[in-house]
């Protein structure tokens, strides 16, 4: 392993790899360590949704910034990411949701997002096969520029583009400890040897909390299992991602025709659990066939699980911490780290390089949890 680097990134997920790319692009000397292989964690396990419809302004901005990057990402990285703007249809089931969604839409519009509120009888114009009445949807919001991409291709695309520009990527390399002097990390001990770095970025996803613990830094993040499944392919017949916060459920169809989706079990306990459950399979089958009765004879091919790295307000933790000055957080994405990665990685790269960040990120620092927090409510938890 090399002796020193400007920036050491811990974690070969989409955020770590994207950050490596934007840093080397700016001329920094970058090293990335990954305990297993690229995209082995949540980046390789999610459904690839990319949406801009959020309830907090900063998430909308992060997401809109990311979409601008996604639109040109294939060209930028020189690879295929299967990015498509098929839209997101978010269903409202209660009057309360209708009120919240209308508020969201007007805030999102003020940010320049092309988004509209749909009445019940307009929903089938977007997805004719959706059983609107059967599922009790009374309204929806629709943003056609939302979409999806293949998260594994995006992550590997960033990693390879970064490596081509000189980033050093060490796979199967574990961080074992740190040497700290005067509130600064001076050396990182890994299973491949020690390395010195000016900045150390904690992008270890659901394991970020464990990395921080090695430095005595307490992160409020908790790992939650999130399960997901995919079916056999049928001829593509809808393009949007369909979400219901009410049913804690989302699904879309891949360009190859497979239906991919997930359901959050409200009774899920925190923990590092990757097991597939029968409860999930049963609930997904029930929900999918209720939402689209035509899916009844479609077979499930695989189910698997990943981890959400959840913070108390469901917003990420970005930037330095008070106690260890050169230890930068890039974690706590709470289940939507993939879709905002291009923008968050750009912001952290700007921060490290001493540039003005294109969006303010101070409100997303770890210190925010000392005071009162504004929770992101548009999440499948």
């Amino acid at each position, binding site marked *: 392993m090399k002796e020193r680097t400007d920036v050491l990134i811990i974690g070969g997920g989409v955020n770590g790899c994207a950050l490596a790319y934007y840093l080397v692009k700016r001329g920094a000397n970058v090293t990335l360590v990954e305990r297993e292989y690229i995209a082995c964690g949540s980046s390789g396990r999610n459904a690839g949704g990319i949406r801009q419809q959020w309830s907090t302004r900063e998430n909308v901005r992060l997401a809109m910034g990311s979409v601008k990057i996604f639109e040109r990402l294939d060209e930028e990285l020189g690879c295929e990411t299967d990015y498509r703007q098929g839209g997101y249809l978010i269903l409202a089931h209660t009057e309360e949701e209708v009120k919240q969604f209308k508020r969201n839409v007007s805030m999102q519009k003020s940010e320049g997002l092309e988004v509209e509120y749909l009445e019940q009888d307009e929903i089938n114009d977007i997805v004719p096969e959706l059983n609107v009445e059967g599922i009790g949807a009374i309204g929806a919001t629709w943003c056609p520029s939302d979409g999806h991409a293949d998260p594994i291709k995006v992550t590997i695309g960033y990693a390879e583009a970064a490596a081509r520009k000189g980033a050093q990527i060490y796979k199967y390399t574990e961080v074992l400890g740190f040497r700290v002097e005067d509130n600064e990390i001076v050396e990182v001990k890994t299973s491949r040897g020690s390395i010195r770095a000016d900045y150390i970025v904690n992008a270890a996803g659901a394991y970020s909390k464990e990395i921080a613990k090695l430095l005595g830094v307490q992160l409020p993040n908790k790992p939650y299992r999130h399960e997901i499944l995919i079916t056999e392919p049928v001829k593509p017949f809808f393009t949007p991602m369909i979400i219901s916060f009410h049913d804690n459920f989302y699904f879309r169809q891949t360009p190859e025709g497979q239906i991919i989706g997930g359901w959050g079990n409200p009774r899920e306990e925190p923990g590092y659990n990757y097991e597939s459950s*029968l409860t999930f399979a049963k609930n997904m089958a029930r929900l999918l066939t209720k939402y689209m009765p035509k899916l009844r004879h479609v077979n499930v091919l695989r189910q698997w699980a990943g981890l959400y790295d959840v913070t108390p307000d469901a917003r990420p933790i970005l930037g330095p911490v008070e106690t260890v000055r050169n230890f930068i957080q890039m974690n706590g994405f709470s289940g939507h780290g993939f879709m905002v990665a291009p923008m968050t990685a750009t912001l952290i790269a700007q921060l490290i390089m001493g540039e003005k960040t294109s969006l303010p990120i101070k409100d997303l620092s770890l210190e925010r949890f000392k005071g009162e927090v504004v929770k992101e409510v548009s999440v499948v938890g």
Partner: protein
Amino acid sequence: MMDVDLRIYEHPILRFIRGRAVSFTFNNRQIRGYEGESIAAALLAAGIKVFRRSMKLGRARGFYCGIGKCSSCLMRVDGIPNVRTCIEPVRGGMIVETQTWEPDLPTTMEFDVKREKVDVDIAVVGGGPAGLEAAITASKLGATVAVIDENYKAGGQLIKQTHKFFGSVEAYAGVRGINIANKLLSELRKTKAHWILGSSVFAHYSGSSESLLAYGGGRYYRIRAKKVVYSTGAMENMLLFPNNDLPGVYGAGGVQTIMNVYGVKPGNEALIVGAGNVGLILGYQLLQAGVRVRAVVEIMPKIGGYKVHANKLMRQGVPILTSHTIKEVQGKEWVESATIVEVDKNFNMIEGSEERLNVDLVCIAVGLSPSIELPAQAGAKTSYIPELGGYVPLHNKFLKTSLENVYVAGDASGIEEATTAMFEGRIAGAETSASLGYNVQRAETIVENTMRQLEMFRKSPFSSRVVKGKMKVFSMMGDLT
């Protein structure tokens, strides 16, 4: 159009007893079938070879494995896409359609599924020689057993073996495979074992007990078991060459199924790729069915299978060409000819040595890979062991995997043969029963005796490779614990 019927009505060894004649439609055309036949068998008997079009390039695809393990024969049946027609029985009045490009959504909204809960001590997944032996042994020792198989005919690959087995008398030496299957099936029928045929196990969840999900024939099963034996067999390997996806290029085992189980002539002129036992035995089975075998090609400089099988074939005038392989096949919608080529000692094709054979059937007999998806999904540790045909679940000599309640037996634990599969099945059946406290002493005696027989059988030089592979597996398994 003339009615084509490729069914075999006279055969030197087999008698085909067909069920009631039924009629169904294929792309708006009336096709005759017989109850007990698979859709694929009835279509091939009617001379239909193209079953679907590939999703991206629209290429013709047809039959391949014959036992529900590949996706080559998927068709739309009564409005439901992606039905494996090789393991779906014909029913009068059914509507069978070719799938073109990507399959359309199901058009039927009927979903009259019956649910059944099954609670047993031991679930045996796969009803071939290993599974049947495991189920018989465990049932006789007093355990409650369910046997699940995705084929609607039990017996695994034994039911298509017309040749007599070698080896010891305890392992049915001198008996034809098909008769061994019948014997095992009638023995199992005498027990109280629960049969679930024509149903695929598609999931395994562990919890306070093991839960398997299976679906087939309009029935959805939730099977709870204390122990699970996976005797899921193997899948035929494919070979890379231009046009290898054309209908007419079939797995050797798939051809045996069509010809020996359903009595349908798979072609008129055949080329066999691979001179291991499967390729050689298939050679004279094809001759028995009235198919002309133009050649058997073998890339290695030596014939891999038993000499007695090779001699039998050569006496009939079939050339076995060693250091030869297939280069490509030609044809528009199905195989019209194939090019074979000689290879040098580094297996490179020798230019100028090509020969084109006018065949309509190319049988691929180049080995098998263990079907380990379910134990792997359950979390059993696996490893790549080339001597055993690929990835296998690690296991000890009692066939227990890295999971306390999961066992493997037969080809799923490493490619070997039917005789050893039966021994392994018996060991797994006795071990699982003993671990649950059934007739422990008797069970242990069975294990001991069977282990001895297995060792004896594996002393043959033909087993040395397998023994080496098994040793690796046992030692890796030992390192885990």
